[in-house]
């Protein structure tokens, strides 16, 4: 179980977060720069909030009022970043074994062998990270995070550097390994499909705040808002598009845009996606 309620300041950016997860996967959803990755960093202990609490399984990892701040290395959180997730100077099996205690830190350790098998990586055990595809790399990163038996998995856009074809496979592998274990996970994503497939809970982020929380289906899937208008400007960042229409700005998955030839754009967005007037 994860409970977090904290604030922190990074430069000119203020983050104020309330999160709650009893079991399963909590999706942090929202546009770029909304504070999702910074939230993951705070949960991991890589940045320190100015006030508030972070509790996992009843143990406080951070509590400003009691000056508790458990260092990252003692938090037992599995962290999978978007890029540079593998140690380039170690092969696949050595990467998986990396966090094990010294006496067990070898490629023949039963846990390493089992994780390679489970994540369909056995044939790549001797490969260098540079020779792997994006999807294979992230599967190795999942295996390495699971090897240390974490209390919480932190997945910061783990599919973002994977091509479309590989993404679905890694997504189903992740869904399977999370379903097989009782480890809660926090997943950062821009992609509504990812949120719907993997999430049990969802927290919607906007400009450094959690503005709504609920199930992904309630927040992303149930209703649809159709915005139509003449385009003033548009910007696409990864899979997310921000479109300014006459009098409205809409941010949502780029795949939801429909253009017609008269310069009018139609955007089918889940109601939860930002629509500022």
């Amino acid at each position, binding site marked *: 179980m994860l409970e977090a309620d904290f604030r922190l300041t990074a430069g000119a950016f203020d983050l104020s977060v309330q999160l709650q997860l009893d079991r399963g996967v909590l999706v942090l959803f929202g546009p770029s720069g909304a504070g999702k990755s910074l939230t993951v*960093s705070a949960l*991991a*202990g*890589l940045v320190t909030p100015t006030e508030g609490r972070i509790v996992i399984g009843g143990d406080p990892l951070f509590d400003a009022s009691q000056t508790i701040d458990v*260092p*990252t*290395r*003692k*938090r*037992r*959180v*599995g*962290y*999978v*970043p978007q*890029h*540079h*997730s593998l*140690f*380039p*100077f170690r092969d696949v099996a050595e990467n998986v074994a*990396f*966090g094990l205690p010294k006496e067990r830190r070898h490629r023949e350790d039963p846990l390493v062998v089992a994780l390679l098998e489970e994540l369909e990586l056995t044939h790549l055990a001797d490969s260098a990270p540079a020779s792997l595809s994006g999807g294979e790399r992230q599967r190795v*990163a999942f295996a*390495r*995070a699971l090897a*240390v038996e*974490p209390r919480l998995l*932190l997945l910061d856009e783990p599919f973002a550097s994977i091509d479309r074809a590989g993404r679905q496979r890694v997504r189903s592998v992740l869904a399977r390994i999370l379903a097989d274990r009782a480890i809660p996970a926090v997943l950062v994503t821009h992609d509504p499909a990812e949120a719907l497939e993997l999430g049990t809970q969802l927290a919607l982020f906007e400009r450094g705040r959690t503005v709504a929380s609920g199930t992904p289906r309630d927040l992303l899937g149930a209703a649809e808002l159709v915005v139509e208008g003449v385009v003033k400007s548009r910007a696409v960042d990864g899979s997310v598009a921000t479109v300014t229409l006459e009098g409205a700005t809409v941010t949502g998955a780029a795949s939801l845009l429909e253009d017609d030839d008269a310069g009018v754009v139609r955007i089918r967005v889940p109601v939860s996606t930002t629509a500022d007037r």
Partner: protein
Amino acid sequence: MDSTTFPIVLSMQVAAISLAIVAPPALALAWIQARRRYRLRTAVDALVLLPLVLPPSVVGFFLVVVLGRRGILGEVLDSAFGLRLVFTPAAAVIASSLVALPLIVKTVQPAIEAVPVELEHVGRSLGLSPLQLFLRVTVPASWRGIVAGLVLGFARALGEFGATLMFAGNIPGRTNTMPLEIFAAYQVGDDRRALLYVAVLTVISVAVVVAASRLNPQPGGR
């Protein structure tokens, strides 16, 4: 040991001991400058560079002022421990260490900066202490830059002349390193003797330059 081989052996010893002394603080400093943001960072950066920029005679003068027999620290060392550094091989080691430090820091620092910070974050999440993180993640990911820095530092220590002359003197059979011996032999017209040490130092320097350029991280690859 005869008077011909002595300067070669002494120079090698001085450079090796200097490297052993200066490497740990230089690597720590390179890591701090690469990874920490603190108020005096720019000032420390400038201070580290100083021995590289100042004329060696100025560095030697400072060393005499601080550690000389009547120096600020030198007097204390002498009265408390009977330790006189000036005109000893130890003085040559101190002078060489000081001038090698900036070269090591300035070569290693960008190599550490080039290590993706995510790797260190992952390492921390896997339970690594700060020292383990440095040894198991940062060093393996930046070893080429680290070795290049150490090789350059060794070469700089080996070639140190001005500060050594001021602080350690040129005492035959005691502090006459190769660079000092070249100067001394040239002054008395013994070009054959000077040429021997010139050849030794040139061969080592060429080897160092080749090694450093092959080791230095190539953009985009490691």
